[in-house]
């Protein structure tokens, strides 16, 4: 997939919505057919631009949820999962108005730092993914790419979410974990645990990372994505636990200008 590294300047393209499906009450996956899509790496994002009739336009970044398309067989589809923010400017349109057949202007693929590739030189290196809320989206692309590429790299995902109803990709994650091929998922509920669960609610802490992550001696590649405060807290815990700062890659999103 080295060819997916961006070799030309990025320009705006127009994709067409091929399908949508709701992931939760407030999150929707949008499948876009993007003619000429050059491919992407797991972890990359796109910038989406909405333009009003009076010419006002605004941009947001959204992580790509899908694994890179197989250049031979698959059409050039790109999936985004968008979490709706009640006071958002862009996300309500994307999750409530945008429908099959609508055009959507986008620029990408963007980013070459927060990416995981099965072709990398350390491709059997263990991977720890830590997600806060919809920060799971680019990490899901990595999980999907791992499966699509038949990678043997052992993956652990620690997924912090408010309550079971806010879980993205719950069914798919359960299915992939049950396949028993090296993906382990640990859920951390900050507000409400599933009914009947004895698991206490709370934030990810040092004990969570020690029990559900990799020891530093395994030299895992670590990807952390979530709101800024979440990312700072988790990265700090990981460094204190002995993980090298250079092994930890982070991506933050916030309520404006970012990934809403």
């Amino acid at each position: 997939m080295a060819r997916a590294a961006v070799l030309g300047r990025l320009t705006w393209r127009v994709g067409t919505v091929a399908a949508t499906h709701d992931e939760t009450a407030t999150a929707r996956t949008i499948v876009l057919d993007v003619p000429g899509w050059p491919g992407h790496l797991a972890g990359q994002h796109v910038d989406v631009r909405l333009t009003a009739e009076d010419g006002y336009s605004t941009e947001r970044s959204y992580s790509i949820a899908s694994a890179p398309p197989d250049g031979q067989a698959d059409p050039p589809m790109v999936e985004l999962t968008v979490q709706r923010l009640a006071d958002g400017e862009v996300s309500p349109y994307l999750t409530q108005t945008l429908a099959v057949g609508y055009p959507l202007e986008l620029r990408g693929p963007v980013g070459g730092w927060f990416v995981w590739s099965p072709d990398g030189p350390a491709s059997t290196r263990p991977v720890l993914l830590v997600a806060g809320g919809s920060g799971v989206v680019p990490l899901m692309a990595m999980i999907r790419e791992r499966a699509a590429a038949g990678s043997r790299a052992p993956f652990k995902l620690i997924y912090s979410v408010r309550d079971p109803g806010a879980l993205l990709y719950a069914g798919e994650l359960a299915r992939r974990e049950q396949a028993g091929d090296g993906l382990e998922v640990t859920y951390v509920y900050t507000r409400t645990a599933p009914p009947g669960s004895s698991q206490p609610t709370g934030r990810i802490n040092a004990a969570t990372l020690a029990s559900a992550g990799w020891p530093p001696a395994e030299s895992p590649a670590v990807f952390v994505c979530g709101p800024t405060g979440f990312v700072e807290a988790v990265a700090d815990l990981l460094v204190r636990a002995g993980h090298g700062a250079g092994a930890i890659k982070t991506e933050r999103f916030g309520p404006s200008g970012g990934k809403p």
Partner: protein
Amino acid sequence: MSDYMDGNMLGGKLGELFTMDVTSAMLTCVSCGASWAVAQTRVYPHAPGMVARCPACDAVLLRLVRGPDRAWLDLRGVTCLEVAVPDR
């Protein structure tokens, strides 16, 4: 406090100017000498443009303003930008 984002979000806008991915480029801070990937910088998107600051010393590294038909890239706080160039 945590009203900043990070340099990952600069990729699209800088990708209009550069042919390579700039988020994985390394830069060196004029103020304190620390080196970071552009993706690791703290980005404040609320100014009229994007302002990236050093995670260590908080000095302004770069500012990027995009107008309708042009862009202004101010690299005042960067001594060096190290970009991987594909060997083609």
